[in-house]
C-alpha cells in the first residue's frame, strides 16, 4: 500500500487544537504546547485542572472528569494512572477525533516515560524532549492521520475519500491501480443507482453499499458531497456490521471537520 495523500490544502492538528497539557496528580505540568494566555503559567493551569479532577471525584465517587465544555471551546482529558493528558480545542471538533489525538499523544508519552513515572524527585527536565515531539505533532495533517488510523484499525487494504463537488480525491491510500477516475466515478454512479433502487422499495436515502465479491469486501459510503471507498480482503475475518458502522462514523467525523470554519 502506498502512502496516503491529500490533494487539497493541508489542515494540520494545530488548526484544530489550541493547546495540549500533560500533568501529574500533584498538578505539576510535565510538558505542554500550543497557545496559552499571557501571564498564565502552565502549572497554574494544570493545578486548577487537577483540583477540578479531585473535586469531581469527591462529588461523584468513582468518576473522573472527562471534559469541560465552554462556549466555542472544549477541554478533553485522558487519564492514565498518575498522568493526565489534556487538549483544548474548538468545540465542533468531533469527540472521536479528539480521542484519536489524545491516544496518540498518550501512547507516545507512555512509551517513552512510563518506566520513569511517577516523578518522585520533582525533576521535570526529562520531559523537555517531549515538548519538541508535541510541536512536531501539531504540524501533522489531521484528516490524513485519522484515515490512516481508521484503515489500519479496521484492517482495510485501502481507503479513498472523494469530494464530489470539487471532483477531487481528498485522500487515497490504495494500490495505484485502484484510484483511477473511472473507479471513483463508478462508485458515485453506483450510489446514485442504489438510491433509485432504494426508492423503488421505499428504503429512503442510501448511506452505504457493501459489496461482497469473490476477493474483497467493498464498502462505499456517502454523506452529502463526500464519499469514501474502503477495500477489505476476503481472507480476513471481519464483521460486516462493524465495517459499515465504522466507515460511516469516520465519514461523519470528516464531514464535520471539513465544515469547521477555521479561525486560524
Amino acid at each position, binding site marked *: 500500500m502506498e502512502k496516503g495523500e491529500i490533494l487539497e490544502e493541508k489542515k494540520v492538528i494545530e488548526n484544530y487544537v489550541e493547546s495540549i497539557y500533560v500533568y501529574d496528580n500533584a498538578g505539576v505540568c510535565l510538558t505542554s504546547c500550543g497557545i496559552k494566555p499571557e501571564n498564565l503559567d502552565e502549572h497554574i493551569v494544570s493545578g486548577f485542572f487537577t*483540583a477540578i479532577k479531585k473535586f469531581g471525584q469527591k462529588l461523584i465517587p468513582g468518576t473522573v472528569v472527562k471534559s469541560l465544555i465552554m462556549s466555542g471551546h472544549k477541554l478533553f482529558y485522558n487519564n492514565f494512572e498518575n498522568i493526565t493528558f489534556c487538549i483544548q480545542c474548538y468545540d465542533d471538533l468531533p469527540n472521536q477525533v479528539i480521542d484519536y489525538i489524545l491516544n496518540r499523544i498518550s501512547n507516545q508519552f507512555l512509551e517513552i516515560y512510563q518506566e520513569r513515572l511517577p516523578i518522585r524527585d520533582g525533576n521535570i527536565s526529562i520531559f523537555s524532549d517531549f515538548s519538541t515531539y508535541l510541536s512536531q505533532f501539531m504540524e501533522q495533517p489531521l484528516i490524513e492521520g485519522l484515515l490512516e488510523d481508521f484503515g489500519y484499525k479496521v484492517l482495510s487494504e485501502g481507503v479513498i475519500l472523494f469530494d464530489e463537488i470539487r471532483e477531487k480525491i481528498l485522500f487515497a491510500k490504495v494500490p495505484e491501480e485502484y484510484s483511477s477516475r473511472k473507479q471513483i466515478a463508478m462508485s458515485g454512479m453506483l450510489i446514485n443507482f442504489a438510491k433509485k433502487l432504494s426508492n423503488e422499495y421505499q428504503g429512503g436515502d442510501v448511506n452505504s453499499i457493501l459489496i461482497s465479491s469473490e476477493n474483497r469486501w467493498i464498502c462505499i459510503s456517502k454523506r452529502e458531497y463526500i464519499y469514501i471507498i474502503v477495500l477489505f480482503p476476503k481472507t480476513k475475518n471481519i464483521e460486516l456490521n462493524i465495517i459499515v458502522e465504522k466507515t460511516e462514523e469516520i465519514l461523519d467525523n470528516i464531514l464535520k471537520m471539513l465544515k469547521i470554519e477555521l479561525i486560524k
Partner: protein
Amino acid sequence: MNDTHLKFVFKITVIGDGGVGKTSLIKKYTEGTFEEDYISTVGAQFSFYDEKINGDECKLYFWDIAGQKEFEFLRSDFYEESKAAIIVCSLEENNLGKESLNHLVDWYEDLNNNCGDIPVVIFANKVDLIDEENLDEGYVQSFIKEKNTIGVYRTSAKTGQGVTDAFRKIIRELYEKYKSNI
C-alpha cells in the same frame, strides 16, 4: 534548554487555620505585596516562585489550601505528591492566634497521615503584631523537636520579616535533597 542544567518543580502544600496569613505570606514572597483585606481562599489557590540554583531551574509550586472546615472534604486530596509543607500559625494575642497554635499538631498529623515524612516548616506569622521580647515560644519549640520539622520561622507578611529566609530555607532543602539523588 542547556542539557547540563536541570529543571525542578517542587509542590509545596501550605496549611494552617483560616486567617493566619497563608495566602498573604505566599503573596508577599512571590509578588512582594501585602493586603490588609482578608479574602478567604476558595478551596485552593496556586502560585509559584522561580529560583535558579547553580544554574538549575527550581520552581516552588504552592498549593495554598483553604483552612476552613468547609473544605476539609477535599483537603487531603490536594496534598498528593507534595514535596514539602508549610504549616502556618499566628502569634497574635487573641483567639485566632491561640487556636492556631493548638491546631499545629492536628495539621501536622493530617499531613503526616497523607504524605508521610515530608519536610515541614512552621511559620509563626504576624510577628509584627506582638512584642517579640515577651514572646513565649516554648510550645512551638517543643512541638518542632517532637515532630522533627526543619524549623520554625517568625514571619510577618506585613513587614516581610523572616519571609524570604523561611522560603529560601525550603527551596535549598529540597534542592539539596533531590539534586543529590540524581
